[in-house]
C-alpha cells in the first residue's frame, strides 16, 4: 500500500463517520450505553473481588506451644515452619507479648478480666503467628505444622488453630461472589459486543450498494475494507471516551466522599490510581475492538460481488 493510499483510507474513514451522521450517532450511543453498564459492573466486581481478597488475607494460623518448651526448640520450630512451602511470614509471640496484645484488644472492658495476670502469673502460651501466601492452602499448611510434633520428645506443639470450619465456609462464599461477578461481567461484555456489532451492521447494510459499486470500479477487497476498519475504530474510540470519563470521574468522587466512612468499617475499596488507568484502558480497548470487529465482519459479507 502506498502512503498516500493509507492517508486516503484514514481520510475516507473519518469522513464516513460524519457523512453517515445518524448511523454513526446510533453506533456511538449504543457503544456508550453498553460500555457504561459494563464499566459499572466491572468496577463493582473488581471491588468485590478486592474485598474478598482482603478478607481472605486476614486468615492466619496460630500455633500454641506447650508450656515449658525450650528456647532452642522454639528457634528450631521457627526454622521448620518457615521452611514449609506457602508460608509467608512466621512471627513468634511470647506469652508476655500475647498478654499485652490481649489487653490492648479488650481495652477497658477487659481490664477487670485480666487483672492480676502479669509476669510469672501468665495464663497464655507462647505462640507463633503464621501468614500464608495462598489463603486457600491454609488447612494444608496447618496440617503440616501439626506434623512437626512427630518424632520430637517432649512434643512442643499444643494446638494449631486457623479458624477451622469458619475459614472453609468463608472461602466458599468468596468464591461464589467472585464467580457471580465474573459471569455477570462476561455476560454483559458479550451482550455489549452483539448489540454494538449489530448496530454497526445495520449502518453498513445501508451501504451495501456503495460497496458493490466500488467493486465494479475495480477496488480490491482490502481497499474497500480499510476505511471501514478505520471508521469502526473511530466509532469505538468516540463511543468509549464518554463512558470512561463519566465512570472514572464518578469513581473518583465516590472514593473521596465515602473513603473515610469505609475506613471506619475496616473496609477498603480499590484506590482510584490503581484501577483508573486499567479500567479506562480496558473499556476503550473493548470499544475499539468491537467497533473494528463489527464493521469489518459486516463488510465482509458484501465483498463477494
Amino acid at each position, binding site marked *: 500500500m502506498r502512503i498516500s493510499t493509507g492517508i486516503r483510507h484514514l481520510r475516507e474513514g473519518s469522513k464516513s463517520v460524519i457523512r453517515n451522521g445518524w448511523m454513526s450517532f446510533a453506533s456511538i450511543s449504543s457503544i456508550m450505553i453498553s460500555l457504561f453498564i459494563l464499566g459499572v459492573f466491572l468496577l463493582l466486581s473488581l471491588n468485590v473481588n478486592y474485598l474478598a481478597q482482603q478478607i481472605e488475607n486476614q486468615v492466619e494460623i496460630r500455633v500454641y506451644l506447650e508450656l515449658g518448651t525450650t528456647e532452642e526448640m522454639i528457634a528450631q520450630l521457627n526454622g521448620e515452619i518457615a521452611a514449609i512451602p506457602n508460608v509467608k511470614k512466621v512471627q513468634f509471640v511470647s506469652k508476655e507479648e500475647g498478654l499485652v496484645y490481649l489487653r490492648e484488644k479488650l481495652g477497658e472492658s477487659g481490664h477487670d478480666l485480666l487483672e492480676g495476670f502479669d509476669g510469672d502469673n501468665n495464663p497464655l502460651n507462647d505462640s507463633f503467628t503464621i501468614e500464608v501466601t495462598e489463603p486457600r492452602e491454609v488447612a494444608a499448611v496447618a496440617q503440616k505444622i501439626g506434623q512437626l510434633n512427630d518424632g520430637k520428645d517432649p512434643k512442643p506443639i499444643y494446638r494449631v488453630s486457623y479458624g477451622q470450619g469458619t475459614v472453609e465456609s468463608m472461602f466458599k462464599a468468596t468464591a461464589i461472589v467472585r464467580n457471580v461477578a465474573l459471569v455477570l461481567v462476561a455476560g454483559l461484555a458479550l451482550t455489549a459486543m452483539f448489540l454494538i456489532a449489530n448496530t454497526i451492521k445495520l449502518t453498513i447494510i445501508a451501504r451495501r450498494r456503495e460497496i458493490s459499486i466500488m467493486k465494479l470500479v*475495480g477496488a480490491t*477487497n482490502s*481497499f474497500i475494507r480499510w476505511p471501514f476498519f478505520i471508521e469502526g475504530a473511530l466509532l469505538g474510540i468516540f463511543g468509549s471516551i464518554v463512558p470512561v470519563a463519566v465512570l472514572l470521574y464518578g469513581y473518583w468522587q465516590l472514593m473521596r466522599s465515602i473513603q473515610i466512612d469505609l475506613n471506619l468499617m475496616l473496609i477498603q475499596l480499590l484506590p482510584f490510581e490503581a484501577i483508573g488507568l486499567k479500567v479506562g484502558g480496558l473499556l476503550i480497548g473493548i470499544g475499539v475492538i468491537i467497533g473494528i470487529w463489527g464493521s469489518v465482519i459486516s463488510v465482509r459479507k458484501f465483498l463477494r460481488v
Partner: protein
Amino acid sequence: MQDVWKTYADGTHALRGISVKVDRNEFVYVVGPSGAGKSTFMKLMYREERPTKGSIFVNGFNLEKLRQRKIPYVRRNIGVIFQDYRLLPKLTVFENVAFAMEVIEAPKKIIRKRVMEVLELVRLQDKIHSLPTQLSGGEQQRVAIARAIVNNPSVIVADEPTGNLDPDTSWEIMKLMEEINFRGTTIVMATHNKEIVNTMRKRVLAIEQGQITRDEWRGDYGYED
C-alpha cells in the same frame, strides 16, 4: 466468447451456447427482447456472473480461470456503465470519478489532472462539487461515463445507458460514446433504443432465448417496439 452457457441456480437457461468475437476498437449494439439474456451477456463480461460452461476472454484474460483476488485488476481495464448510473451517492462528482483512480493508487496530482480532463470531455467541469442527487439523469450518466473512461480502459461495457433518459439527452450520451469509441475504446452496449440503433449504424448482435440470432455490420434494430 466461446460456446458460453449460463444456467442460473433456479434452473433458468439464460444463455445457451453463445460464441462471438468483438475486435479491438469495435462498437457493438446488443439488442433483443427483455429476458432474452442480454443482461447476463453483459454481466459475464465484467465478471459479475460466471459462465456455467464455456470460456470468456477479455483483453487476453480468461475470466473463467481468474482467481477471485485478481478480478479487481481485470475490472480496471473494463469501464462499466449502467442504466441506473450507480454513482456513490455521498461523493461529489469529482470524488466519484477520482475514486476509480484512487483504487489504482494513482498519485494525487495525476488524479486531479486526469479527472478534470475527463469531466471536461463530458462537459461537467462546472459541476465538480455537486452531489449526484443534485444532477439530472443525463448529467449523472455523464459522470458515470467519465468514471468509466478515466483509467483509459480498453473496453466499455454499457448496459442500457440511455434506458432512463429522454431522447435529447440520450443523443448527447450517444455522441459521447461515439467519441470515446473514435479515441480507440471498444464499446459493447446493450440497448432497447430503436432510433439510436437505426440512426447511428454499428454492428448489431441480437440475442433471443439465450442464443445469437443475428450478427450484422451496420445492422438495424429489427424489432417493432
